[in-house]
């Protein structure tokens, strides 16, 4: 059988670097859009919820025949509502999207394509971790910007320097969370399994973080940092230790993820 000769050159094949691959993964699968929409939505809803919560609770209690008074919202409440939402659903979404990229062995035929061409597991683990982290941080940034803007407009001024420190804390934490997903991908094969293992791991670290003294050192401290900072209960200097520990754990998780991926057989 003979096939026709090559026709016009394909449009999209000028170069196919790893960076372009990871960009296309985020763009064409709508994962970047999902993260930005989700975090952005939470950012818009947080301050609105803080503003109208007293009214909603007042109406609800009146219908039940008693009066419940909720204090008027303060600017930190707008950020606290945002963090409350993204600290749960936002992190689950990040874990799921990271798992879709990092669970390389979930599809054996695709895994063979990469594994027989990229001999070092670091070649696929690290770019996918970096791209997903950047996408998550972008989503987080959009959401925080929306929450900050709405809080300032609807409730009152926020200490922007502390908001920026809070942004940094979450950026560091998101890098850690995606690294935990990479580690989970070294232990479990399926995308759903990797997501579940990573979420359980992050919850476990959060539970350990509830232990006094020990908790102050753990990554989970960074999750509540934006709220604590704008409320004044946390000083930026208090966050240096958990931030450094989180960076160290991120590096360790990535190193272990690479080792596990390298040792795994198809």
């Amino acid at each position: 059988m003979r096939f026709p000769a090559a026709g016009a050159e394909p449009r999209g094949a000028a170069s196919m670097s790893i960076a372009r691959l990871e960009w296309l993964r985020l763009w064409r699968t709508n994962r970047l859009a999902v993260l930005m929409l989700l975090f952005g939505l939470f950012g818009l809803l947080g301050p609105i919820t803080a503003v109208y919560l007293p009214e909603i609770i007042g109406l609800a209690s009146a219908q039940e025949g008693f009066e419940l008074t909720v204090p008027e919202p303060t600017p930190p409440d707008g950020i606290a509502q945002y963090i409350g939402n993204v600290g749960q659903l936002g992190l689950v979404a990040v874990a799921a999207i990271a798992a879709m990229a990092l669970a390389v062995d979930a599809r054996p035929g695709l895994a063979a394509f990469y594994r027989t061409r990229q001999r070092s597991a670091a070649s696929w683990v690290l770019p996918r971790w970096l791209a997903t982290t950047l996408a998550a941080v972008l989503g987080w940034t959009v959401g925080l910007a929306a929450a900050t803007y709405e809080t300032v407009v609807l409730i009152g001024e926020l200490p922007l320097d502390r908001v920026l420190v809070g942004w940094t804390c979450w950026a560091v934490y998101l890098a850690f969370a995606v690294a935990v997903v990479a580690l989970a991908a070294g232990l479990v094969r399926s995308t759903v399994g990797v997501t579940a293992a990573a979420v359980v791991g992050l919850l476990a670290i959060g539970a350990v973080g509830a232990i006094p003294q020990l908790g102050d050192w753990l990554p989970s401290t960074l999750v509540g940092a934006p709220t604590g900072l704008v409320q004044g209960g946390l000083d930026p200097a208090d966050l240096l230790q958990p931030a450094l520990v989180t960076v160290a754990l991120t590096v360790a998780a990535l190193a272990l993820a690479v080792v596990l991926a390298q040792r795994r057989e198809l």
Partner: protein
Amino acid sequence: MTTDAPPVLATHGLVRAYGPAAGVLGVDLVVPRDCVYGLVGPNGAGKTTLLGLLAGLRRPDAGTIDLGVGRERLVVVPDVPEFERWLTAAEVVALAGTLVGAPPSRARVAAELARVGLAEAADRRVGGFSRGMTQRLALAAANVGDPELVLLDEPSSALDPAGRAAVLDLIASWAQRATVLLSSHILSDVQRVADQVGVLRAGRLVYQGPLQTLLDRYLRPSWRLRVRGAVAPLREALAAKAWVEGVDDLGGGTLLVRTHSLDEGERGLVAVAASVGAAVVAMVPEEADLESAFLTLTDDEQVPA
């Protein structure tokens, strides 16, 4: 084929066991350079395990693998190739080249896709490709890195006849510039493209060498014997002979007779026909095929080392 060159791939006592009779149990494979080596065997013989070991996707329990080429010049096409569904065919080929350190030009990508009949689908996302198109895309992605050794696992097993023919043509053309090792249970495909063959049974290599040698050594001779009259007495007389392995009545006065040796058949068949009064109209030897040799080899209880 160059016979005095060192093999492109050799294994020594390669073992990867999944129980006493499953996996790869001490395989000494020798793949000469610039040949098409067909690895055949029944289901569960260990073909996929062996290819996985050679590709570096699995680790052996014991034994060694000597590669005569760099790992970057070895490419693997699995039995069910998969790609990122959101990439176009052209992007897959470009990515495959980039990953092995040989980013291709647009013209090269176009040429590779045209070679496998996917020129028109170059800018289509592969998520919508059929199994056959994906298989051909895998061959384009494999070839773009100019490999010296190609490992193909069941490359035509799920294709329709036209797709199979196209893939076999591609493999045959590949053999002009690389060594190809393909595993398949479709013996006619192997016979069509391979010049060397290895037969795996229960994790052990029971034969390897030139395909023609296998056919000559293990094919049990058989003939289509067409006679006029006395068909039933002839069948009974042949079945009673010790040197006859089997007789089938094909109808229309034709018997398919298998003998233990070529010589016995050539000398004895006509004599037996004459003894029962049957007139021999035609005696046509059956054409040698890999399937017959394979069945003979894998049915044997005692297999030569």
